[in-house]
Structures are given as structure tokens and as C-alpha cells.
């Protein structure tokens, strides 16, 4: 699917239309979900499933997040790419059971700058993976998850 973004996009559009009409069955809803990537248990596996064997590092990909998360249940992460023709942005949490938190397909007029909130079970490196012009790039940051409140 990654090799054929346009086809994929058309399929998804159709799916969206079906969904809007309330006609999507559970199995269909899962059909376009990149199971292998979401179920990857190691970074190597996850990168491979996403088609990104050897991402490059550099300043054109940014991960913006606080150094510390007061609560791992909600960790705001902004993923930014300054690379031309950015097609896709993914957020990965190294120490989560399911490393891939989400991936975002960026349309031509969409600015590759996406903010989402992720769960983190513990302090971990968080990676932003960008696909642009068919190549992969990454940026990483360690986010510390603290124990809050009196209960723990």
C-alpha cells in the first residue's frame, strides 16, 4: 500500500463513503489497517512494516513535545516535516507494546505538521518517521513519564 499511495487513497475514500452510510462491517474496517505495522514488537519490525528500513536523521523532521509528561495517558506530540513532497508522517513509541501510535497520510495541500496525543506506558524514546519523495527520515526525542499524584 505504501508503494501505491494513490490507489490506497481511493480505497480509503470509498471506505469513508461506506462508513458514512453506515455500511462498513468490522472486517472491512480493519481491511485497510496496517496490521503488521501496528503489531510490530521491535523497532526493526516496525520500520520494516512501514517500508522504512534505514531512515535518515536530520533537521528537516522535528518532534515537538515536552521533556516530561506529567501523565503517560496523554502525551501531546507535534510531528513536523519541512521536506518537500511529504507523503506520510508516523509516530512511534519505542517502549509501548504497540510501538506505532499512528500514521498520517498527507495530501498535497496539507501542511506536514500534525499534532496528536499518545499514551506512553513508561519513559521512552518517541520517533517521528517521515516519508517524502519515497524516502524515509526520522527525528527522535526521549520523553520522561513521571509518576504523579498521591495514589501511586
Amino acid at each position: 500500500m505504501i508503494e501505491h499511495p494513490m490507489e490506497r487513497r481511493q480505497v480509503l475514500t470509498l471506505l469513508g463513503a461506506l462508513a458514512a452510510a453506515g455500511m462498513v462491517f468490522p472486517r472491512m474496517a480493519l481491511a485497510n489497517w496496517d496490521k503488521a505495522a501496528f503489531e510490530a514488537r521491535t523497532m526493526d519490525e516496525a520500520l520494516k512494516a512501514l517500508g522504512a528500513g534505514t531512515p535518515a536523521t536530520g533537521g528537516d523532521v522535528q518532534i515537538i513535545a515536552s521533556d516530561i509528561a506529567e501523565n503517560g495517558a496523554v502525551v501531546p506530540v507535534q510531528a513536523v516535516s519541512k521536506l518537500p513532497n511529504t507523503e506520510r508522517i508516523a509516530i512511534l513509541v519505542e517502549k509501548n507494546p504497540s510501538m506505532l501510535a499512528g500514521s498520517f497520510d498527507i495530501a498535497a495541500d496539507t501542511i506536514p505538521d500534525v499534532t496528536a496525543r499518545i499514551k506512553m506506558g513508561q519513559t521512552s524514546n518517541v520517533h517521528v518517521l517521515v516519508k517524502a519523495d519515497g524516502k524515509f527520515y526520522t527525528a527522535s526525542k526521549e520523553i520522561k513519564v513521571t509518576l504523579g499524584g498521591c495514589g501511586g
Partner: protein
Amino acid sequence: MKHRALLVAVALLLPGGAAMAQSGPWGPGADDAAFAQMLKTSFKGRGVATLDRLNQDETQVFCSDPETVYAPESAARREEIEKVNLASVKWPADGVWLGDWKEGEKIAQSGRGNTWTDKPEQVNGGNCYNCHQISAEEISHGTIGPSLHNYGKLRGTDDAVMKATWAKIYNSKSNNACSNMPRAGHMGILSEEQMKHLMALLLDPRSPVNQ
């Protein structure tokens, strides 16, 4: 429930009582009768948190009036309260002060126990990190109490230090009548063994607290 032995069923909840004769700084409408009536209609027992927890002992009565607690004329009363609390301290039966600092760290980290959502068999935590810095690695620590980092390194480990530390953990009010710290031994929050582990966390030279 042996820690209840010292509890005085305060006049607060009983009409005609005299323990709260001086009403403190409370303004109109908040006299003893009105306050007792409010408590009576506003709380219900749930789980381990039974209604008798609103019956104050003499330490709690004294410490609930912020205007008089630190007033110069209260000095003698403060000393009395400290004496009563010191008298409650039970020293380790086998004369051994220190347990295992690793266990102590776990107890210091845990804030569990004694709430209405806790089961009676719940092993209580010490709540220590909620208020104190202890081991330097734990950055998520409170500041209500003083830092305990390097506790043993700064004070040494002679018998006087051991004794004072034990008394503080067992009954914090033994040297400070209205300390914010719970009376872990006196109120039955922690067992003797657990308190020994906390002693080790603070005083064992191998504990990260003293590294």
C-alpha cells in the same frame, strides 16, 4: 485497632461535651454545635473509612486550631502533646534498627492504603515521596517535608540518630506536636518490619539515599 487506645471520643460529636470549650477563631455560625451538626449530616462511612475517623484524639483537637497552635501561650500545651506522643513509641522488639533499604524504597514509593477504596487487607505504603525528596534518582517527589537525601551520610548512624529517627517515623508528633507527617507506627499504618525497611533506606550506607 490498638492505636485507638489513645483516641479520645471528643465532645465534638457528643452534645454537652467540654473538650472543645475554647472554640478558637471560628466566626459566627461555626460554633461547636453547628460544626458538629454539619459533620453529622455530611459524612457516611464507606469501606475501611468508618465514621469514627471523625472522632479526634487530643493531638488532632489541638492541631485543628491554627490560631493557637503556634501561639507563645501554647508552648506548654505543645510540650504536653509531644510527651504523650513520645510515650506511645514502641521500640524494635529485637533491638535491630535496620531492615532492607530496597524494601524501604518500595514502601516510600507507595501511597496506598486506608482510603475507602482500599481493601482492609491492603498492605499500606509509607507515602514518603509524596512529601519528601529521598533518593536522588526519583525526581517526582513532594516538598511538604524536608529533603531526606543523604540522611544517614549527614547525621551518622550512632544510637542517638537511630533512636530519634525511629521515634520520628513511629510517631512524628513526638518531637513536633503538629507535624504534618502521619504517625506511622502509633496509628498502625506501617508494621515494625516496614519501619525497619524505611530506617534502612535512610540510614544504611549502601542505600542510594546516602550515595
